[in-house]
């Protein structure tokens, strides 16, 4: 029994068992977790407001040179005929009668322009200078200033929304220009603004000449962005959807300046004490009018009638004082094309 071959066989069996058990134990042990740190390439990414155009795609510039539209934006609106109809009794068949039948006046506004048209976070209501003007017109139509549906629109949407009747009226710091006068009708001028520049107090900039090559922010589709592009010092225009987006970019260090109407800039400056207006006098004239459908002559005349009343009864001055915190100057004089 204990022959050489027998011993060899037993040894082989034992070896086989050992192999099998060995394989088992080896398979049981788990490999150590691979905890090699990844190569970290750190780069901070500064977020941008949605819809930024840097550099801005400019709106097709108003045709210049011979054949360019010439007009007087201050005297381009229709003179009211006769006395205003009593509130709630709009003449049959008129644009105002249709608005009255609908039950609300649809007004395109901005909810991002501090002091002129903005959403008051405390009340959730849209308030401001432009909004008060709109309430006055609703009151003249319905006898109730609150029969208004505010539609918040961006600067670029203002003309299309008037043209396709999404809104009856735009009250949104809108400059009357010859180019726009061919697409929409405007009321008489209700506010006389002008373009200025907002910069950081510590920016070291002193005038328009210093803006060369610097990024300057404005809302897409506004007159401001075209004016920036036309400056002799050649700043780089950056376009955003809303004026407050410009302030975000200035605070995040993505633009060097914001350039638009002094009215809007004062509203932005009020939200950030580290900013100031660059110029003591505005470098353009921006007369504001309410935009309406080109074909609604009756509405334009009606609105001009309401504005005339507002100028004479002290309503305009009251609105001015309420929002701009200073004694009201004389309201802009109404001038008419006819």
């Amino acid at each position, binding site marked *: *029994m204990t*022959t050489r*071959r*027998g011993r060899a*066989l*037993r040894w*082989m*069996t034992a070896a*086989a*068992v050992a*192999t*099998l*058990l060995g*394989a*088992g134990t080896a*398979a*049981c042990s*788990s490999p150590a977790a*691979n*905890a090699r740190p*990844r190569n*970290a390439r*750190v780069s*901070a*990414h500064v*977020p*941008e*407001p*949605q819809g930024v155009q840097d550099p801005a795609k400019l709106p097709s510039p108003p045709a210049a040179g011979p054949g360019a539209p010439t007009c007087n934006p201050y005297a381009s609106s229709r003179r009211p005929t006769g006395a205003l109809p009593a509130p709630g009794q709009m003449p049959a068949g008129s644009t105002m009668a249709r608005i009255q039948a609908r039950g*609300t006046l*649809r007004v*395109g506004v901005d*909810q*991002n*322009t*501090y002091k002129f048209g*903005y*959403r*008051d*976070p*405390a*009340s*959730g*209501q*849209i308030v401001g200078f432009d909004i008060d003007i709109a309430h006055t017109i609703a009151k003249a139509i319905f006898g109730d200033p609150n*029969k*208004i*549906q*505010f*539609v*918040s*629109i*961006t600067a670029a949407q203002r003309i299309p929304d008037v043209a396709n009747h999404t809104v009856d009226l735009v009250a949104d710091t809108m400059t009357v220009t010859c180019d726009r006068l061919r697409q929409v009708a405007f009321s008489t001028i209700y506010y006389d603004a002008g373009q200025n520049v907002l910069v950081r107090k510590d920016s070291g900039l002193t005038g328009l000449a210093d803006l060369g090559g610097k990024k300057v922010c404005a809302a897409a589709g506004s007159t401001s962005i075209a004016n920036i592009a036309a400056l002799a010092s050649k700043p780089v225009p950056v376009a955003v959807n809303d004026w*407050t*987006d410009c*302030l*975000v970019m200035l605070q995040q260090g993505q633009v060097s300046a914001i350039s638009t109407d002094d009215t809007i800039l004062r509203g*932005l400056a009020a*939200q*950030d004490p580290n900013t100031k207006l660059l110029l003591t006098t505005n470098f353009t004239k921006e007369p504001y009018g309410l935009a309406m459908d080109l074909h609604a002559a009756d509405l334009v005349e009606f609105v001009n009638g309401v504005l005339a009343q507002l100028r004479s009864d002290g309503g305009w001055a009251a609105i001015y004082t309420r929002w701009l915190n200073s004694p009201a100057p004389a309201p802009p004089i109404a001038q008419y094309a006819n």
Partner: protein
Amino acid sequence: MVQRLRAIVRSTPGRLTAALIALLLLGIAYGITAFTGSNEANAHVLSVQDSSGPLTVSAQSLYRALSDADATAATAFLSPGAETAASRQRYETDIAAAGTALAQVTAGASDASAISAQRLDVLATELPVYTGLVETARTNNRLGYPVGAAYLREASGLMRATLLPAAQDVYSTQTQRLRSDHNAGARYPYVAVLLGVVALAALVFAQRYLTRRTRRLVNPGLAAATLALLAALIYQNVAWFDLHSHLDSAQADGSSQVQALAAARIDALQARADEALTLVARGSGGAFEQDFQKTMADLVGADGESGRLGRAAATPTDPAVRTAIRAASSDVAAWRKVHTALRADDDGGNYPAAVTAATGSASDAFTHLDDDLAAGIRASDAIFTEQAAAAGRTIHIVGIVVVILTLLTLAGAAIGVQRRIAEYR
């Protein structure tokens, strides 16, 4: 040497020795293959149970927490005045949950693909930026400055354009890992079974040879070896069927259901954010309303009974999950009704009524829906955990049982053949 070998093989004891060596080698090959195979399956099942399964849940909660934060921030902005303590609490819970889930997924992603690692980096670097923007928005809002709304829009844009897509990628990577673990764990042990069958045939052949040579009907050692090997093979197959059914159930009633309901829940959140953002945009929110309708159609279909929720309702076997899904369907119907009225109010010029509905009845309907979907997810996840654990219990002992039976086979074969060889001394 060759001649000697030939002489040995030609002699009966020589042949028997050669046969024994062949039997032992086959037995060892079977044992090793079956053992390592079951070990590998065990590793995959353990991964389903402890790693890819839970990590899929973490990745899903990461996505959910982020989109809930977005919806909560948008809704908080909608209600006038300073935000309520409840809504601030909800936002902060979301951010905490997102941070925890991100840490879990990152810790578990040691073997993750480079793409997933890059996405995790995006989440880790952009989440603090997002919360910073929300805080800036909050501060400006409290001061009454409209620039707060601009910061909130920027935050929401960052969330929707960067954070949520990254979280979505991480989630689908985890889901793929879970699926591949599941498939690997449930793979049939073809090679081992084939080797086992060959070894079994060799044992039968050896016994027939010995019966003819020795005129003894039964060799007890070899018979025992045959029985042990047969038992090993049968056991291996039974265990595989059991494992397979548990894993299948873990997937069909567990993880797939969790995924379907999680997708529904994310749809609901998206629709909720859209509803709020439509009102925040105030007239220029047409795109958000379109997205709301699209998301709703995705969730319940055009008829209100199909869509994601309809598909999820068709599969579950568990009564708790079925109840939760049925409740969710009626929540959606209730919410849509409120939403339609809310839109009519807003479009008709009654903005304050629309805001009241959005922060009141629509908010309640959404919360019910979210809670019911969460209950369905919890129930499905419990099934997953239970079935994965059952699969783990099954596969856990397969290896050791197969080794013991293989050792018995080897011992039986060695003893049985060696007795015969000894008779020739």
